[in-house]
């Protein structure tokens, strides 16, 4: 297994995102090293999802920067970020439900199956489309979905739908893959399978950053973990450091006691 390098591929510096009077992300910074599996955790309402949405271009930050491969990409459109290799997944069963499983992944190859308007009209895009189809089937095989290629996505089980969501993102050939709660709603067996797939994706040269509630999965899978609370950085470090950090324990216990007003470092 190749370890993470030293160079950060994705960085946030002093991110701030407000909604009306509410500060969801408050001067938050982190750095993801190339080749890492990096976890972002925190109690409910800590601002993880907002952070994710800012990094992936769904919202522009009110202040601060997102740096991708050393370039400031804050406020760029999601599609432009995808074209640069920064691709996200979604929570739950966010899929093209009415399209077939294969077509879902074919849409995922949007960026690599390029052709001009006239080429498409005249059918001159056939070679590149054939290649895209072949690649799409490869990706489906990687996730064990090749048998289901012709099914509408809405017919899949929840676990398969999560796999397909990953397959769509992976077929966009990302350099950094942002996974939004990849293990939610999975049984232990599916979780183990998903974990091994995430490792294989990383070993294939893709840096992975994930937001997750399943602490066990995060601790087992990640090289580095960033913990956020009240929109700001709480602790960052290796799983075992984070696990035993008193501030983290307090934050989670405080949240568990449902003490929304509880004070955190």
């Amino acid at each position, binding site marked *: 297994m190749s370890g993470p390098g030293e160079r950060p591929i994705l960085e946030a510096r002093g991110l701030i995102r407000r909604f009306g009077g509410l500060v969801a992300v408050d001067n938050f910074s982190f750095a993801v090293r190339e080749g890492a599996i990096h976890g972002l955790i925190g109690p409910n309402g800590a601002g993880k999802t907002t952070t994710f949405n800012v990094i*992936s271009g*769904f919202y522009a930050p009110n202040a601060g920067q997102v740096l991708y491969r050393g370039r400031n990409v804050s406020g760029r*459109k*999601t*599609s*432009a970020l*995808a*074209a640069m290799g920064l*691709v*996200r*997944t*979604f929570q739950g069963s*966010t*899929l*093209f*439900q*009415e*399209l077939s499983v294969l*077509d879902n992944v*074919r*849409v*995922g190859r*949007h*960026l690599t*199956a390029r*052709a001009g*308007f006239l080429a*498409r*009209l005249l*059918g001159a*895009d056939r070679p590149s*489309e054939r290649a895209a189809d072949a690649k799409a089937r490869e990706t489906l095989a990687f996730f064990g979905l090749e048998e289901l290629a012709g099914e509408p996505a809405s017919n899949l089980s929840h676990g398969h739908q999560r796999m397909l969501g990953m397959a*769509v*993102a992976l*077929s*966009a050939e990302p350099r950094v893959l942002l996974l939004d709660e990849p293990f939610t709603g999975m049984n232990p067996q599916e979780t183990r399978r998903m974990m091994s797939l995430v490792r294989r994706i990383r070993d294939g040269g893709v840096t992975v950053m994930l937001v997750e509630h399943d602490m066990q999965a995060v601790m087992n899978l990640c090289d580095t973990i960033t913990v956020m609370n009240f929109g700001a950085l709480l602790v960052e470090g290796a799983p075992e450091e984070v696990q035993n950090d008193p501030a983290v324990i307090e934050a989670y216990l405080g949240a568990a006691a449902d003490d929304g007003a509880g004070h955190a470092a």
Partner: protein
Amino acid sequence: MWRIATRLRLLILFAALAVLPYLLSYSQQEIAVLLVINVLLVCSYRLLTLTGEWSLGHVVMMGVGAYASALLTKRLGVPVPVSMLAGGLAAAAVAAILSVPLFRMKGFYFLIGSFAAGEIIRLIWKRFTDPFGGPKGLKRIDAFPNIDFGFLEIDFYEPVNYYFLALIVVSASLYVLHRIERSRIGLTFHAIHWQDRLAESVGVDNFRYRTLAFVIASFFAGIAGGLYGHYVGAVNPTRFGVDQMVYVLVWAIVGGTATLHGPILGVVVLTVINEIVLRGLGLDTVRPLIYGAILILSVLYLPDGLESLGPRLRARLRRRGRDPAAAGGRAA
């Protein structure tokens, strides 16, 4: 590349369409011309709906094509076939410009925005008598020039001949629309319709693709407008108003928009009902009422349109066909 059965069916269809005008009276031939033009109008509208957006300005885009083509011939002496193409391009250009504000919105807001944009264009036609002719619009628009083969001169003033001209232009346009839908562009339109955030996340520029759909749809609406203007010889702002837009909506919804033949079915069936039944019975005044009732009833009871009747009926027949057989099997 099509299957033999499909080719055969198309061949029969075109043969029927070629014979059709000779079975019709003169006034029915005129209606047939307009029907063919309306087929293009509603099918181009369907392309936009593939992305999940419903516009209320599509008929105005047809008007843009009609006005542009008419003005180019009247003012600059551009030959009619060229001006028709230019009319389509003008509608496409207007759509491209309008995309900038309109596609900052989605769904209902886009619907209302497109309505506002269309009304503005119509008011401009009304207000600026030079060059648009004001509320009375443009009259004496040049007709499509005769074609003289020496041994045969085709006069497009004759509805039969214009019918064939329109049929050729519309068929070619429908083929292009079909190719677009079958290509990855069509797949991307569907993807945006069902889950635009996911599409965006794998690199689809939603704004660009929505614009593309709007521009293509408007181009063909503009072509339909050119065909209309040079046939009827006059255009005015009222002709491209909300009432006409309601008809397009009715055709699309009654026919269904899942397939290309859905809206065609809608416009053909409703035109036949309209012209033969209503006009025949002298019920011209109540026509809007009947259209309104059909619209409500189809939204309530046939939400997937006439196109969904065929498959449903077939499924039912199959079930019925199977059941007695199964019963017979048990008896034996």
